[in-house]
């Protein structure tokens, strides 16, 4: 399986503040990956580095084997939709498509026009007069019209109402279905992306916490419930992500490194959202230490 995106020890510093740190991810081609993390976790920074808009302070990034930068070859291979869908306000959808045709070597205007027509988005009105959902669709169409191999979407649905959100994600799924397009779409809510993604990158506290196929992530986490005991003691031999104590019970969310041997634990499966929240949440015990990829070695 070839790799769409690979980063090793990637970091970005603004002044004395690290926006992204020790970020090592590997995303196989042809997948839709959710890039999830709380606000300020470094999602935008990572996407900007991958899009060649921003230079890393340390570490390395490869997109389809190329270092992101100012070459026509690289720029042709990516599609990028920035946060808040920046468009030239006074230009119409048609104008934007016309510009794209002038600025790109491979430009699929007819497919973009057909998509936008199917969504009944007016082609000749200034984009400033369109709704947020329509603008997001225009942005997606522009990014797709480049016929990129890697599509990077930065919080495309954050500002959309639930209906527009669903429509946008449906468009995205449709686009990802044909061909071997690799997509990375970020959101601070996993809930938005759970249905369209099959791969997860979790950033928290400026670091990668998880990177792997969603099925693998699910298979690797369990909740253990048992009689109350000292957490440090109970967690021996387990990677505890989150621990909650009541007067009578201890509940641990753990990442499995092997089978759970202690028979006093009741072991149950756990949903993806709970896993993500455990990594992101206040009680997370791992916020300061980065984790490596999960799942079978690739």
């Amino acid at each position, binding site marked *: 399986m070839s790799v769409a995106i690979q980063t090793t020890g990637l970091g970005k510093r603004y002044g004395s503040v690290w926006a992204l740190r020790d970020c090592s991810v590997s995303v196989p081609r042809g997948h839709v990956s959710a890039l999830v993390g709380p606000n300020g976790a470094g999602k935008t920074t990572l996407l*900007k580095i991958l899009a060649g808009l921003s*230079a890393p302070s340390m570490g390395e990034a490869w997109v389809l084997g190329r270092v992101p930068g*100012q070459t026509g070859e690289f*720029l*042709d291979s990516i*599609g990028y939709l920035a946060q808040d869908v*920046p468009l030239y*306000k006074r230009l119409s959808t048609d104008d934007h498509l*016309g510009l794209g045709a002038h600025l790109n070597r491979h430009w699929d205007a007819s497919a973009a026009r057909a998509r936008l027509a199917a969504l009944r988005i007016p082609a000749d009105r200034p984009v400033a007069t369109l709704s947020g959902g329509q603008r997001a669709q225009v942005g997606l169409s522009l990014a797709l019209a480049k016929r990129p191999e890697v599509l990077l979407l930065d919080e495309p649905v954050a500002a959309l109402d639930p209906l527009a959100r669903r429509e946008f994600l449906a468009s995205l799924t449709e686009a990802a279905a044909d061909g071997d397009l690799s997509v990375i779409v970020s959101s601070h809510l996993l809930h938005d992306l759970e249905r369209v993604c099959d791969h997860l990158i979790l950033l928290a506290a400026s670091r990668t916490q998880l990177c792997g196929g969603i099925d693998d992530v699910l298979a690797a986490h369990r909740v253990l419930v048992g009689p109350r005991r000292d957490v440090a003691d109970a967690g021996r031999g387990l990677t505890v992500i989150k621990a909650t104590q009541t007067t009578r019970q201890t509940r641990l969310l753990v990442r499995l490194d092997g089978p759970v041997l202690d028979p006093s634990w009741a072991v149950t499966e756990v949903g993806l959202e709970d896993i993500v929240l455990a990594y992101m949440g206040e009680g997370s015990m791992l916020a300061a230490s980065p984790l490596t990829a999960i799942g079978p070695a690739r």
Partner: protein
Amino acid sequence: MNALVWRLHRNQAYIAGAALAALGALLLITGITMTRDYHAFLASCAAARSCGHAGQLFAGDGAVTSLVNATMAVPLLCGLFRVAPLLAREFEDGTHNLAWTQGVTRIRWLNHTVLWPVLAAAGWGAAMAALVSWWRHPENAVGAPVRLATFTFDIQGIVPVAYAVFAVALGIAAGALFRRVLPAMAATFTVFTGLRFLIAEYARPHYLTPVSRSFPPFSDNAAPHGSLVLSNATLGPDGQDYTAGLGFQQVPAACRGNGQQAAGQLNSCLASHGFHTQILYQPASRFWAFQGIEAGIFIVLAAALVAVAYRMVLARDA
């Protein structure tokens, strides 16, 4: 790439073209009248074998003259409202993220974003300057107002082109630096007006060493017609300035006489004691040299600003 620049700015290009056409029409009409008056005046001079106050010839064209003088503000307005927002708005709206992830490299995008406004400004400045220079040619011929003076110097010849290019470069650099429309506009306005004022007021009169001429003290001699007079002072033998006049005690004893002598006698006596009137001026013939020097200064500054803008845009993150 050109299509992007044109599509984003074609409305402004239309407006600029229309404004230029309107001004052109007005200057053409009044300019033809002025030329006709001037030739009629020359003919009457020849008939009378003497010329009266040529300087008064065009005094009646106040409104049009004001308009022509107002063209001085054109480079500033162009830099302020068209060019300062050019880059700043891309950053403010985030559309640079869109532009920089298309199939053209950032440097190519920047080349076009900078090149076309500079060319447009230079072309526009040249057209305005040519119009105004032509319109003013009878005034220049009679030497009033003085062609080297502020206002008249600034709106004709080649300097308007340099000012326009400088204003554009300044707007681009300010946009690249501040990445916000209002700060970029404020910086463009402040730096442009400030620098233009300082150079016109303090640097321009000294581009070349002024011509110095001495006359007997308190005499009515003047610099040649059309010169830019920098100073006209009566100095004593010690170099002290007596332009306001001498007190009795300051007059050398030998010249005091009985206090009843004629002014002419006193002045020639003062002259023999080293008193003299000194005029410093820039002759009218230096007009093109001064135009070249001033245009050179602003073009060099513009080039430096464009270099700064390139550094800002290419080296910084999106």
